[in-house]
């Protein structure tokens, strides 16, 4: 009983991060919710397999990403809905400076390959170490590093060049140009 309570407490505490990762990965809030709930079910069923003192968060994320790649990725269940993501996940945020930047960012993120996006989210957003991310993804540390680097490079390209037609040259381009002396 006490062990279950502890496990459930840990599980509840992890939900916001699991959801954030799932939403970023799936590109669809409904799908992400399904993914996280399925992850919770699996985690609960396998709670006796979790070793006390090992990395609970990494364990949960491993279950989630494995479930995503086996059951949820594009072509199986999930329907990518770029506008839906922007509308649903960010609509609660009031218009403020940076709002459009976030929507642009989200659209750029959606254009990364899934491997690169996953690696970037684990390391850059969730704060896992390269080693932890490699274990979660079941690959070599070098692989994670190169995926993260490629993700960052690709985002740099996407966000710099005409990412939002409404606003002319990308804001990042403008920011860079305003600081670099011409000729």
């Amino acid at each position: 009983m006490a062990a279950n309570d502890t496990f459930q407490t840990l599980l509840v505490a992890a939900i916001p991060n699991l959801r954030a990762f799932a939403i970023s990965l799936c590109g669809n809030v409904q799908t992400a919710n399904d993914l996280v709930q399925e992850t919770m079910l699996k985690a609960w069923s396998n709670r006796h397999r979790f070793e006390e003192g090992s990395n609970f968060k990494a364990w949960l994320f491993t279950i989630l990403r494995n479930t995503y790649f086996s059951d949820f990725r594009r072509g199986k269940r999930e329907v990518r809905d770029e506008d839906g993501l922007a509308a649903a996940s960010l609509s609660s945020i009031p218009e403020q400076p940076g709002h459009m930047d976030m929507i642009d960012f989200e659209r750029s993120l959606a254009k990364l390959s899934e491997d690169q996006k996953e690696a970037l989210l684990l390391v850059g957003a969730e704060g896992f170490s390269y080693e932890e991310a490699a274990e979660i993804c079941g690959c070599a540390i070098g692989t994670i590093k190169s995926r993260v680097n490629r993700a960052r490079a690709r985002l740099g390209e996407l966000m710099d060049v005409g990412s939002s037609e409404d606003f002319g040259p990308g804001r990042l381009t403008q920011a860079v140009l305003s600081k670099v002396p011409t000729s």
Partner: protein
Amino acid sequence: MNKLGKSASNGTALQSGEAAPVEELAGTAACDAAPDHERGDLPVALDERIQSQIGQQLSSFYRELVNQPIPDSFMDLLAKLDQAEQKSSGPDTDSGNGTKGGA
């Protein structure tokens, strides 16, 4: 053609006969702070300022998602798991929410 050549990852593709400046050999382009006159040689995408911007936007974006309220359905699910656990030690009744995991 720039006499320093393209910034190669291993620094061996230099085209001129002169010794490469330290900056050219110092490693990946993404990490080095190149002098301003060389900035045009770096892929724009790897520019430090852009990468720093990306880091900030990733954090902001992600933080917004993490801070969103958890839908009630999640807490309902947890309550069901708890109830099923307490009801019996055998397989629980089908809640209609899909199969109990473990595949």
